[in-house]
C-alpha cells in the first residue's frame, strides 16, 4: 500500500496522548508541590506554636519563682516555706523548657539569638537574684525583705518579658508569613490544578471529537459501504478524501469493490453464455432425438416387412434382419431416454401438494414386473405430503427402486423407502442391500450415460440417475448417495415440504 506523506493517525494519536499525559503529570506535580508546601507550612506553624507554648511556660515558671520568692521573703510566719515549694519546682523545671525553646528555634538564626539573650537574662535572674535571695531569706529575712522591695527581680522579669514579647512577635510574624506564603502557593496551585483539569477536559473532548471525525466516521463510512456491498450493491464506493491509514483503507475498499464488481459481471456473462449453450445443446438433443425417431421407425418397419414377406427368400439372412430390429429397438430406447433427459428440467413443473406414498405406489405398479422377477422385498414407511410434480417425482422413485432391484448381490434383494424431516425439506431415501459402490464413484454416477458396469452385466442406458438429478434440482432439492461396496447403497433426495 502506498505510504502517504501526511503524518499517520498512529503518530497523531500518540502525540495527542503524550501531550495529555504531560499535562496531567504537570498538574499532578503542581498539586503535590502545593500539598507538600501546605504540610511544611503546617509543620513549621506547629513548631512555632510549640515555641510560643514553651516561651509562655518559661514566663509562667519565672512568675511562679518570683511570686514564691516574694511570698517566702515577705511572710514572717513559719509557713513561709510553702511559698518556696512552687518556686523550687519551677526552678528545677525551667531549664527543660529553655532547652526545648532553643531546639524549636534552631532553624532561625535571628530567633536563636533572641532566645540566647533570653537564656542569659533568665540565667542572670536565677543565679544573681532568685537563688541568692532565697539563701538570704533563710539566714536574714529582714535583709531579704529590704532587697525584695527594690523590685530588682520584677525589673529583670519585665526585661525578660519584653524580650519574650519581641521573640513572640517575630515568631508570630514568621507563622503569618509562612501561612501567607503557603496559602498563596496553594491558591496558585488550586488555580493551576483547576486550569489544568479544564485544559485536560477540553483536550479530551477535542481528542474525542478529532477521533470521531478522523477515525470513527471514515470507518463507519467504510463499514456502511461494506454492508451495501455485502447485500449485493456492488457499485458501493467510499469517497477518498484523506491521505492516511483511513485513506488507504478507503482506497483498498474501493479497489476490492471494483474487482468484485468486475468479477461478478464476468461471471454473469459467462453464466448466461453457459445457460444459452446448454439450452442450445438441449434443444439440439431434443430436436435430434425427435428427428431420429422417424427414420428409426421406418428402418424398423422395413425390417419387419422383410421378415414377414421375404423370410423364405433370405435363407439364413433372417438372423441379420433380426439383428437390425434389435439394434433399432435399442437405438429407439436410447433416443427416448435422451429425449426424456433433455426434457427433464426444461419442462415447466406442475407443482401440487401430493402424498409421496401415492407416488411411490405408482412407481411400484410400473415396476411390478422387475420387482417380482428379482423376488425383491420392498417396504415403504409412512410418507409425507410434499409439493411436487406428480409425474416427475414418480419417475424419480421409479428409477431409484428400479436400480435397487437391478444391481442386486447374490442375496434376496430388500428395498426400504422412507422419509424424515430436514428443516423446510423432507429427505427421502431408497435403501437397498445390493452391490453398492465405491464412495469415489458417488458423484460420477449422476453424470449422463456414466456407467459403472458393463451393459452385459446390468443393462440400461445409464441416464436414469442424471434424469433424477435434473428433476430433484428443478424442485429445489438435491440428491446424493452413500454406499458401502458389497453391502448396499442409500440414495437420498430432498423435496420441499408441503405448506402447512
Amino acid at each position, binding site marked *: 500500500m502506498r505510504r502517504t506523506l501526511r503524518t499517520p493517525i498512529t503518530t497523531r494519536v500518540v502525540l495527542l496522548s503524550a501531550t495529555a499525559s504531560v499535562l496531567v503529570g504537570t498538574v499532578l506535580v503542581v498539586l503535590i508541590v502545593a500539598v507538600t508546601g501546605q504540610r511544611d507550612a503546617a509543620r513549621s506553624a506547629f513548631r512555632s506554636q510549640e515555641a510560643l507554648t514553651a516561651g509562655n511556660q518559661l514566663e509562667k515558671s519565672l512568675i511562679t519563682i518570683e511570686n514564691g520568692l516574694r511570698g517566702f521573703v515577705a511572710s514572717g510566719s513559719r509557713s513561709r516555706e510553702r511559698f518556696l515549694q512552687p518556686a523550687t519546682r519551677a526552678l528545677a523545671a525551667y531549664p527543660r523548657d529553655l532547652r526545648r525553646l532553643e531546639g524549636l528555634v534552631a532553624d532561625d538564626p535571628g530567633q536563636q*539569638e533572641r532566645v540566647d539573650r533570653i537564656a542569659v537574662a533568665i540565667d542572670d535572674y536565677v543565679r544573681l537574684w532568685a537563688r541568692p535571695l532565697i539563701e538570704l531569706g533563710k539566714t536574714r529575712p529582714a535583709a531579704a525583705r529590704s532587697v525584695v522591695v527594690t523590685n530588682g527581680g520584677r525589673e529583670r522579669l519585665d526585661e525578660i518579658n519584653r524580650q519574650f514579647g519581641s521573640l513572640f512577635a517575630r515568631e508570630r510574624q514568621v507563622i503569618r508569613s509562612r501561612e501567607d506564603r503557603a496559602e498563596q502557593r496553594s491558591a496558585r496551585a488550586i488555580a493551576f490544578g483547576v486550569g489544568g483539569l479544564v485544559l485536560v477536559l477540553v483536550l479530551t473532548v477535542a481528542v474525542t471529537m478529532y477521533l470521531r471525525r478522523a477515525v470513527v466516521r471514515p470507518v463507519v463510512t467504510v463499514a456502511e459501504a461494506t454492508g451495501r456491498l455485502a447485500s449485493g450493491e456492488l457499485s458501493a464506493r467510499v469517497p477518498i478524501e484523506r491521505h492516511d491509514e483511513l485513506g488507504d483503507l478507503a482506497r483498498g475498499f474501493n479497489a476490492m469493490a471494483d474487482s468484485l464488481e468486475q468479477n461478478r459481471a464476468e461471471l454473469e456473462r459467462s453464466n448466461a453464455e453457459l445457460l444459452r449453450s446448454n439450452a442450445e445443446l438441449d434443444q439440439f438433443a431434443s430436436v435430434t432425438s425427435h428427428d431420429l425417431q422417424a427414420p428409426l421407425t421406418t428402418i424398423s418397419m422395413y425390417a419387419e416387412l422383410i421378415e414377414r414377406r421375404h423370410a423364405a427368400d433370405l435363407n439364413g439372412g433372417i438372423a441379420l434382419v433380426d439383428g437390425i430390429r434389435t439394434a433399432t429397438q435399442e437405438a429407439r430406447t436410447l433416443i427416448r431416454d435422451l429425449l426424456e433427459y433433455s426434457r427433464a428440467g426444461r419442462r415447466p413443473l406442475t407443482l401440487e401438494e401430493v402424498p409421496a406414498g401415492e407416488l411411490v405406489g405408482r412407481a411400484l405398479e410400473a415396476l411390478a414386473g422387475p420387482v417380482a422377477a428379482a423376488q425383491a422385498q420392498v417396504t415403504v414407511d409412512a410418507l409425507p405430503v410434499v409439493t411436487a410434480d406428480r409425474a416427475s417425482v414418480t419417475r424419480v422413485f421409479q428409477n431409484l427402486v428400479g436400480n435397487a432391484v437391478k444391481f442386486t448381490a447374490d442375496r434376496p434383494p430388500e428395498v426400504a423407502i422412507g422419509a424424515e424431516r430436514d428443516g423446510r425439506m423432507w429427505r427421502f431415501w431408497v435403501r437397498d442391500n445390493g452391490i453398492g459402490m465405491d464412495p469415489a464413484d458417488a458423484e460420477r454416477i449422476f453424470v449422463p450415460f456414466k456407467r459403472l458396469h458393463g451393459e452385459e452385466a446390468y443393462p440400461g442406458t445409464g441416464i436414469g440417475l442424471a434424469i433424477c438429478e435434473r428433476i430433484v434440482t428443478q424442485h429445489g432439492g438435491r440428491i446424493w448417495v452413500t454406499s458401502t461396496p458389497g453391502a448396499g447403497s442409500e440414495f437420498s433426495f430432498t423435496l420441499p415440504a408441503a405448506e402447512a
Partner: protein
Amino acid sequence: MRRALVGVLLALALAIGGCGGGDGGSGDATTSSTSGDAAAGPPLRMGTKNFPEAVLLGELYSQALRAKGVRVVLKPNIGSSEIIHEALTGGALDIYPEYIGVLLSEVANDRSRPGDPRAAYRAAKAFEERNGFTLLGMTPFSDSNALAVTPEFAREHDLRTIADLRRVPGTVRIGAPPEFATRFEGLVGLRQRYGLRNVHTTALAIGRQYAALDAGRVDAAAVFTTDGQLSRKRYVLLEDPRGVFAAQHVAPVVSRAALRAHGPQLTQVADAVSRRLTAPAMRRMNAALVLEGREPRAVADEFLRQAKLK
C-alpha cells in the same frame, strides 16, 4: 550563648581600644599576646551593685582588665550588698567592687565600726578570707553614707549634726534605698547612736532621693558623699559625730579560685585602677553619669584612657 555575649563585648572592647589610636598601641600589643592564654579558662564574672557609681566601678575594673586581655563578663545592677554578696558566695559571680564599711556592717555583721580605714580593710579582708574570698587593693576615695537636707530646712530647724534632727517637730521623712531601714548604717544606727525616734524612711531607688528632697516629698535624704549632685553645693550634709556612717572605701571582693585562674595580672590591673580612684575623680564621674546623663561605659573609657590604664 554566654560565649557569644563575651565575643560581642570583646569585639566592642577591641573596637573601643582601636579608636584610641597611637597612645593605646603598646597596650593593644600586650592584649593580643595574653588574650590567647586567658581565653583558655572561663571568663571572669564581675557583678556590680545597683546604683550608678557601682555600675561605673564595674565598667572601670572590667574595661581595664579587658585591655590587658582578661575576658570579663560584666553583670551590672544586681542589687544591694546583701544579695550581690550572696550571689558571690553562691558561686554565680567571681568578683564585685564593694564598699568596706557596708561589707563589715551588713555582710560580716561586724558592728565594731573601726575608725581607721586600714583597720576596717584588714577586718573585712580577714572576714572574706575565712570564706574562700579575699579583697584586692582599696581605693583612695570613700563614698560614705550621709544625711542631706536642703539649706532651707537646715536653716529653719537650725540643723548642723544628725543629733539636731531630734529637735525637728513631728516626723522626719528620710528618703533612702529600701535597705536603709534594716541596716546599721541606716535607721538602726540612727536610733541606736542618736536615739532618733521621730524618723522613718520612704523607700526610694538610689538616685531618686534628690528629686524627692527638692520636691519636698521627704525632709532628708540618705546620700553618698561622692554623689555627683553634691558637687553643686545645693545641699547641706549633716555631720555624724557619733560615727553611724563608716568610711566607705572600695575594694573588689574576689573568689580565691578566680584569683588563681587569672593569675597576678588580675590583682595588678585592679589595684592599678583602684589607686587612681580619688574622691574628686569619682565625684566628677558621678556628675557626668547622673547630671549629664552619660553612659557609665563611656565615662569609664574616658577616665581609663586619661589615666593610661587602657
